[in-house]
C-alpha cells in the first residue's frame, strides 16, 4: 500500500502480542521496532516500565526493549526531547515532547532529518504520587490493586485485579485538585501535527476501538516510517473513513474548549501594581538548585549557560538573575510542558510563571514555540 503525506489511516501491529499489549493496536511500538530492525535509525527512545505508575526513558538498540515498552503511561509526565540530542533515533512523543525536539533542532542540538518522531495525541498526564493519593481518597481503591486505566466520555476509569471498574468525571477530579497536571490543562496542542506522524485513539470506533490507532501522516519522514513498517510486515493500515475523521476532530475541539476554560481560570489577571511583588514572592523560596533548567526540554545550554553564569549565590538581588535570564530565554522557547514545576523542590509554579511571560510575547509575534522549524527563535534572530 502506498502512503502519502496527509493520509489519515487506521492501523495496528500485525503481531497479535504487540497488538494486544499496545495502548490501541500497538502501531507505535511496531513502527519503532521496524525502524530499528531495518536500520532506518540507530537507536530508539522508549519508556522502560518500573511499575504501574512509573517508567523511565531509555535509549536502546535492542528490539526487545522496544517491544517491552508498549502501553500509554498516563502517570509518567516525562519529556523525551533531550534524550534525542546528538543521535539518530526514532521516538514516540506527546505534543510537548515533539515541541521540545523542535526547539532543540532549532538550536542545532538535534538533526531533525535523522530524528523520526511518532507523535501521540495527548489529553494530559498525571503525577504518579497524586494519582495514588487520588485512588485512595476519591476512588477508595488500593493503588497496588490497579491494573489498568482508560478515559471514556470525560470520565477516568480504573480497573482492579478482580475486575472491578470505577469511573469519576475528570472535571470533578480536577476540581478536587487531582487529575491532570496543571500545565496539561492549559496545553493547547492535543494532536501533534508537528511530528512525522500523529497517532491516537480518537476516531477509532466500533470493532476497532482499542485495537487500532488513528494515524495522520504529516510529512515525508512519516511516509518513510510507515512504509518501512508496512514493508517489513510489522503493521497493517487502511484509510480512515469520513466518520472516524469527524469524530477525531470533534473530540479535539471539545478538548480545546476545555483548555480555554482552564486557561481563563489559571491565568487570572494580576493587577499591574501587584505583579512585581507577586513574582518576587514566588521566587523568594528558590534554593538555586537549577533543576528547572536541567529538566527544560527547550534549553540547549550545557553546564555553562547565561542563566547560571550571570547568577551568583552571594547576590542579594530582589529577584534572582537566574530567573530573569530564564524568563527572557523562555519567552521565545517555552513549550509549556510542565517539567520545571514538576521538579521544583520548593513547589514554585515555574511553568505557569513562564507561560505568563511567554504567552503574550509569542502571541504578539504570532509565534508558537516548538511547532515548526521554519520559524527560527525570534529573540536571537532578526524578524522578517
Amino acid at each position: 500500500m502506498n502512503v502519502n503525506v496527509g493520509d489519515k489511516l487506521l492501523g495496528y501491529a500485525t503481531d497479535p502480542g504487540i497488538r494486544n499489549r499496545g495502548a490501541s493496536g500497538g502501531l507505535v511500538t511496531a513502527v519503532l521496532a521496524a525502524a530499528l530492525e531495518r536500520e532506518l535509525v540507530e537507536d530508539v527512545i522508549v519508556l522502560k516500565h518500573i511499575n504501574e505508575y512509573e517508567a523511565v526513558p531509555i535509549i536502546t538498540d535492542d528490539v526487545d526493549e522496544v517491544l517491552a515498552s508498549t502501553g500509554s503511561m498516563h502517570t509518567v509526565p516525562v519529556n523525551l526531547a533531550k534524550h534525542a540530542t546528538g543521535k539518530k533515533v526514532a521516538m514516540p512523543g506527546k505534543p510537548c515532547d515533539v515541541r521540545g525536539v523542535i526547539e532543540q533542532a532549532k538550536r542545532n542540538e538535534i538533526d531533525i532529518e535523522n530524528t523520526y518522531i511518532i507523535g501521540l495525541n495527548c489529553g494530559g498526564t498525571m503525577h504518579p504520587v497524586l494519582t495514588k493519593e487520588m485512588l485512595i481518597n476519591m476512588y477508595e481503591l488500593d493503588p497496588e490493586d490497579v491494573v489498568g486505566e482508560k478515559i471514556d466520555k470525560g470520565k477516568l476509569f480504573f480497573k482492579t485485579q478482580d475486575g472491578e471498574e470505577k469511573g469519576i468525571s475528570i472535571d470533578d477530579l480536577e476540581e478536587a485538585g487531582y487529575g491532570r497536571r496543571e500545565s496539561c490543562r492549559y496545553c493547547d496542542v492535543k494532536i501533534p501535527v508537528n511530528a512525522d506522524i500523529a497517532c491516537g485513539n480518537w476516531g477509532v470506533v466500533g470493532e476497532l476501538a482499542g485495537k487500532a490507532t488513528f494515524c495522520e501522516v504529516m510529512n515525508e519522514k512519516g511516509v518513510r516510517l510507515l512504509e518501512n513498517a508496512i514493508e517489513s510486515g510489522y503493521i497493517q493500515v487502511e484509510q480512515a473513513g469520513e466518520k472516524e475523521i469527524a469524530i477525531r476532530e470533534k473530540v479535539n475541539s471539545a478538548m480545546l474548549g476545555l483548555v480555554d476554560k482552564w486557561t481563563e481560570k489559571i491565568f487570572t489577571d494580576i493587577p499591574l501594581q501587584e505583579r512585581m511583588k507577586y513574582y518576587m514572592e514566588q521566587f523568594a523560596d528558590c534554593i538555586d538548585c537549577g533543576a528547572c533548567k536541567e529538566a527544560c526540554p527547550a534549553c540547549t545550554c550545557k553546564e555553562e549557560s547565561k542563566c547560571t553564569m550571570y547568577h551568583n549565590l552571594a547576590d542579594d538581588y530582589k529577584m534572582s538573575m537566574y530567573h530573569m535570564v530564564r524568563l527572557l530565554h523562555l519567552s521565545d522557547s517555552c513549550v509549556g510542558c510542565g517539567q520545571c514545576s514538576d521538579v521544583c523542590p520548593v513547589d514554585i509554579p515555574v511553568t505557569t510563571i513562564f507561560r505568563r511571560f511567554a504567552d503574550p510575547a509569542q502571541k504578539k509575534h504570532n509565534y508558537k514555540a516548538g511547532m515548526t522549524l521554519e520559524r527560527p527563535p525570534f529573540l536571537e534572530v532578526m524578524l522578517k
Partner: protein
Amino acid sequence: MKESVYQTYCPGCGIGCGLYIRKDDKGNLSIDYMKSSPANLGKLCRFGVTLAHHYSEIKTTVTGSEADVEDAIKAAEQRIQSSDSIAMLSVGNTCNEEHMAFTRIADTLDTKVHTGLSIYNELASHCHGYLAGMPFAEMEKAKKIALFVDPYVQYPLIVRRLLIAKNNGAKILSVGTKKLNLADENLPLEPDEYETLEIDNESLIIADIHPNSDDDHIKRLIALAQETGAKIHFLRPFINGAGASLIEKEKIGNMSLAQIMEDIEAGNIRTLVTLDSDPVELLPDAEAAVETLKKLDNLIVISSRKSPVTKLADIVIATEPVYMKAGTFISVEGRVQENSGEGVDGIDAMSLLNGELGGKTFDYQQMHYRVKKCVENAEKEMAGHTDNKASDCVSDVKEVSRSVPEDMYELSYLYNPFMWFDQKDDNDFVIIDRKLVKELGLKKGGMVLLSSEKGKIRLRYMLSDLPEGLVLTAKKLPIATGAITNVSMEGC
C-alpha cells in the same frame, strides 16, 4: 546504545530522595527524576541535581598500589590480627546490609561499630524515640514549628513541607540562623531563652544530628520537647544515618567522631577500619584529621567512592557505587527504601574478610534477613517518634555557653550535603550581618578577611539579618578549627 537504569536514593542526606541513575554504554552517568517517590515526588536539591559528579571511581589498593580484592583482604586480615586496639566506623553512607556485614566483622573481633554519634549513649534507650525522625506528613500538620536548621541550605527538601505547613496555618519560628524567607519570625535566641518560643504540645521542633553536633544542645532541645510535650524531629545527613543507628543497636559503639580522633592521637586506637566513612570529609578541620590519621598503624578503608581518606589508607577495599548496590536504606521519615541494584561486592568482600578473621562467611540474603528482623524490632522506636512521651530523658541540661572573645565573631557551619562529601559548589562566601558591613566599612562587591588561629582567608560575603556576632558559611573553610571557630573580621 544500551542504557541501564538504577532506581536508587540520594546519598546527600537522610531525607532519602528517590531518583534514577542512568548509565550509558560509555559509563556516563546522568540522573532522572523518580516522580513516584513519596519522599520527594522526584524533586531534588542542588546536590541531587548534580549527583552524577558525586560517584568517583575507586580502586582496591594495598599500600598505595592496585591489588586484587582477595590480596587486599588477606593483607587486611594480617594487619587486623596483629593489632589489639581496633576501632570501626560506619556513619551510614551505605546500605543496611553492608552496615550489618560490618557489624559481623566487629562481632568476630569482639568490638563495636561506631557511628560517630555519642548522643545515643547519653540517653537511656527508651528515650531513643526522640532521636528518630517522623513522617513528613506530621510536619505539614504542626501548628507551630521551631526551626533550628536553615532548611534552604541544609535540608532543602523540607522547605516545601514547611511551606505546606504554613499554608495550613502553622507559625514558623527560626532560631539563631539567618533570616529565612519562610519564617514568620527569626529569633536570635540563646539556649536559656528557648521558653520564650512558647512551644506547646501541638508544636514541632526541627533540628539535626550529625557527627559534629553538640550533644548538650541536642539534650537541651529534647528537654524542651519533654517539658512542653512538643514533637521533635531530628534530620540527619547521609543516606542511611537512621539505619546505622537502628541496625544491631547493641553492637553500636558510643564514641563520637571527635573522641575517636582523640583516642588515635593518644595512641589508644592503633587500627581504624572504616566503611564508607571519611573522617577527613566529616571533620571541620580536614588538615588536623589527616595528621591524626597518619598516626595510625593501620588504616583500612572499605569504600564505594574515592575520597581523601582513600589516599591515606594502607588498604582500600573498593566496593561498587552506592546506586548499584543491592540493599535497603532507612530515611529520616522511618521509611525503609530498597535499591533496584544487585551489586553485592561489598558484602562479599566483608564476608571473605570475616571468614579470614575466623568468623562465619555470609551472603547478601542472610544480611538482608537480619536487617529485616532488626527493622521489625526497631519498629517501636521508629514509630515511637510520633508519640515520644518519655518524660525522664533529660534531667541535667548543661547550659550551652560559648565564649567568643571581645571583637571576635563566631564562624559557624551550615552543614549541607556538599560539605559532607567535599563536593564542589559555588558556596564560596560567608553570610554576614548588615550591621557588620557598616562597622567594617565594607563596599559592595568587596571582600572580607577572616582570621583564626589557623590562618587567614579572603572571601566574598552575602548580607543577611543574623544574630549578632555570628558569621555563617556553607562551605568548609581551611581556617576552621571546629564546627564553630572564633574569627576576627576585617574589610579588604
